[in-house]
């Protein structure tokens, strides 16, 4: 058990960061999209206004069952837990609570809650969206899993703390470059950004699993996506872009923040210049990516 004061502070820091900072990143991406569209775009703080408004809005209950009611709460809670399991600016506060396998599965827990909110809503759009979400998870998750396993094999540990420390002090192998590029693409899909905006696909199936979600529940789901964006970006940059780190916490944090911003700008650009893929195209696309990660894994096992 490592419930020291330092860890507790770090935990609080991670939670506040994920809850309070994540909408700002969304605001930045929106602004970026507007610039590419030659629009003025909403102010940077617009996502905060959206969330505040939704939290007070009337909630319409169209199906009376447990998972329809509370899937948003459970999903958002799970994302907060993931925030404690993931390294943002330092080793994760719950380093002694779970490793990368637990991290991946807790993330899938939030995906499960999205699916449950869809299937329990009685709307065919919801079920269709849930089935699409499941297919995305089916094809995207293996990429993320294998990429993180490559990192784990290189560092010979499944703990985030040990993996990050390993790459800060050791040369960066070829296998990590390969899976890093592939992981970046699959993160775009995990964040439901174009061209992988298939689950919600508002022009086709009207937000899919969220079609019957309203008021505070919708707010929590939106917040969950913002938080996911921040967490994924942080995990990616701290494992796959480990260079020039500093021992001073605050410097390291600001540096991480800059890395996250740069990454999200790239994600935003990809988002705005791409049309949506169909689900079958996406499935085939990721089948190729899985193959590439396996090649990366072979490199890692061969020692480079």
């Amino acid at each position, binding site marked *: 058990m490592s419930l020291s004061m330092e860890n507790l502070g770090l935990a609080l820091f991670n939670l506040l960061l994920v809850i309070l900072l994540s909408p700002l990143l969304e605001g930045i991406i929106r602004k970026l999209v507007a610039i590419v569209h030659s629009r003025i775009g909403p102010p940077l703080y617009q996502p905060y206004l959206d969330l505040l408004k939704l939290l007070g809005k009337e909630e319409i209950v169209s199906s009376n069952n447990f998972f329809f009611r509370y899937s*948003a709460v459970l999903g*958002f809670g799970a994302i907060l837990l993931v925030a404690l399991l993931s390294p943002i600016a330092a080793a994760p506060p719950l380093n002694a609570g779970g490793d990368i396998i637990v991290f991946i599965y807790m993330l899938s827990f939030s995906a499960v809650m999205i699916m449950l909110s869809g299937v329990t809503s009685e709307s065919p759009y919801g079920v269709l969206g849930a089935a699409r979400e499941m297919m995305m998870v089916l094809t995207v998750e293996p990429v993320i899993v294998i990429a993180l396993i490559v990192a784990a094999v290189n560092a010979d540990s499944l703990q985030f703390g040990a993996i990050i420390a390993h790459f800060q002090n050791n040369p960066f192998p070829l296998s990590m470059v390969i899976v890093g590029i592939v992981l970046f693409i699959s993160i775009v899909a995990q964040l439901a950004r174009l061209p992988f905006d298939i689950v919600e696909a508002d022009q086709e199936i009207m937000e899919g699993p969220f079609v019957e979600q309203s008021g505070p529940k919708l707010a929590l789901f939106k917040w969950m996506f913002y938080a996911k964006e921040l967490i994924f970006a942080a995990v990616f940059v701290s494992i796959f872009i480990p260079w020039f780190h500093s021992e001073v916490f605050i410097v390291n944090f600001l540096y991480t923040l800059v890395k996250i911003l740069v990454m999200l700008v790239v994600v935003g650009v990809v988002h705005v210049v791409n049309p949506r893929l169909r689900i079958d195209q996406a499935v085939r696309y990721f089948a190729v990516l899985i193959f590439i990660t396996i090649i990366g894994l072979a490199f890692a096992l061969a020692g480079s």
Partner: protein
Amino acid sequence: MNPIQLFIISTLLLVLGAIVTWILGNRRELTSKLSTVFFALSSIGVLSVVFTVFSSGTAQLNAPLIEVPGIDSGLLLRIDLLSALFLGIIALVSFMVALYAVRYMNLKIFADLSLRAFFPVLMIFFASVMYVVVVVDMFFFFIFWEIMTLASYFLVIFNKRDKDTLRAGFKYFLITHIATALMFIAVIIIYLQGGSFSFDALEQAMQSMSVSNPGLLHLALLFLFLAFATKAGILPMGDWLPDAYSSAPIPASSAFAGSMTKLGVYGVIRIFVDILPVSDFSQTWGIIIALMGTISIFVGTLTALVQEETKRLLSFHVIGQMGYIFLGVGMGVYFLNVQPVLAIVALSAGVFHLINNVCYKSCLFFNAGSVVWKTGTTNFNLVGGLHRVLPMTAVIAVIASLSISGVPPLSGFSSKWLIYQSSIRAAITNPLILGFGIIALFISIVTLASFVKFTSTLFYGKYADNNTKAKRKEVPLTMMIPQIVMALLSIIFGIVPILPLKYVHKSIASLLEADFFPPMQSIYGTDSLGGLMTNYGEGVFAVWNPLLLTLVGLFCILIAYAFYRSGSAPRRADTTWYCGEEHSDEEVRYRAHSFYLPFKKMFRIRIGKYEREGVYPSIGYPKITFGNNLFKRITDIDKWFYDPLVNRFMALMKRFSATHSGVPHLYLLWLIIGTVLAVVVLFLLAGHSGHL
């Protein structure tokens, strides 16, 4: 009372129960209730045996109960920690199944089938299953194995009206008996070397064979492995399983999934860990076991994804989950000779997964049974929205589904986590095993997909009103309790994995010399909250602390709830929005068939003109007909034994009933004749004794 005596008494209770329920077979309600009582008593007995053995060590008989002269074999019983572990599982499952069956077997769809073919057979089945895990003599192991197989065969063909059932039963009979024959050959091979059937002698025989005749030992091990893998449903030998499971009534399928298939794992552990000396042989066979397990994981689960019938879906998942167990056990056997630390973790992972699998798999079969109870069908496409009539079952089904898919913090995740992390650790020694682990990880997501389909089409989505039967309330209490118990166990074993793992570790460590494996604390760490921190001698490798994470997670959910209510948004109930169009219920349902079509298409096999969906090449078995359906007649005991007996008896009684003419004078006449006869008899007796 010593544990062995108590064990024998408990199993004899089951045999007695079988006789009693057979005699009272026609009174359905009474039979069902009585059988529960017998199962409860025997379960209590066996469980107390289990606790005694775990606290005070192996119990055994000093002299055999029965001796077979000439071949040096005797019915020797020994309950060691491994047997006790399996006995505990079997006792729990047997009681839950019996409790569930009380109301289920009295469903109208079974009204014309005699319960004589169910409860007595079920009792004999469980009694033989229990003996299989405690005998330490290959000859009697074989006998009890055969009784178990026969009993399970009769349970499979319970629903004899159905032609498919009889065919599935025949397939099961054929495949398992080929496997049994192989086991018999293997046993004979080893017996000829050692001259005795007892397990101790087998060990010595294998020891000497591994030096003198390794080829023959490999052959014997192959046959033994095939026999156990067939029972466990490992593909391709497990081809019988989906047919047999989906033909048997649900309590029986649940009993098979909870006890019989698991005995395949027991056999593998007993032979490859306990009896086979640690050598190169364990390395070779470990890889084979793990490979077969991975094939089952892959093929079984992907095939489950395309099933459109609850019982078939669940039975393909039985194959997939047995694959996980075999993967864990196989890795363990492989590492016995290489790295004992990793060996015990992988073996424990396999057996721990077995325990979890018993919990959630029986629970899922019970859920499917509740759906049958409510709607009379097992077809996904015909039902929907059952959470309105089965609210409790729906929540339990979601819990069990998440557990089997390995969503933390439920039990399925804890054991899968152990399997994954040991396979990743094994990457340095053997990259092949890492490959197995990655397939297992990927398939675990497919499992989730399959169970999203299972729960969403059965319990959620649009309520299918065409089921007029579905007006009743939630299933009765005796069907509810087993589901609740199994779901609770899934949650508890997930949050406190150290609790079962302690016993699993103990029982596996007891199979080899005392200092072969390092002590438990040095592997899993000493966490005050019972978290697992695996350490293979070079620092902490992987961490999973479910209790801590659950507590923190609950706290996070509280924060989320605070946000949810922070705006104190009003709630309003309204109908679902269908774009404002007029619609029928039928039009707005999303059928099970439509799930994951693009993904399913990726696994389409096409060779020339031949094309099929899915990865499972189900081999059509030939229709074998014995002249004039002899086989069918032999297996139908009712027809050639019970029915004629009853008919004769009834005919005899009819003659007596002829005396009941309804004419008072005749009754008087009978009375007088009777009295006269009695007097005459009395006089004769008095005459013999001399005075009256």
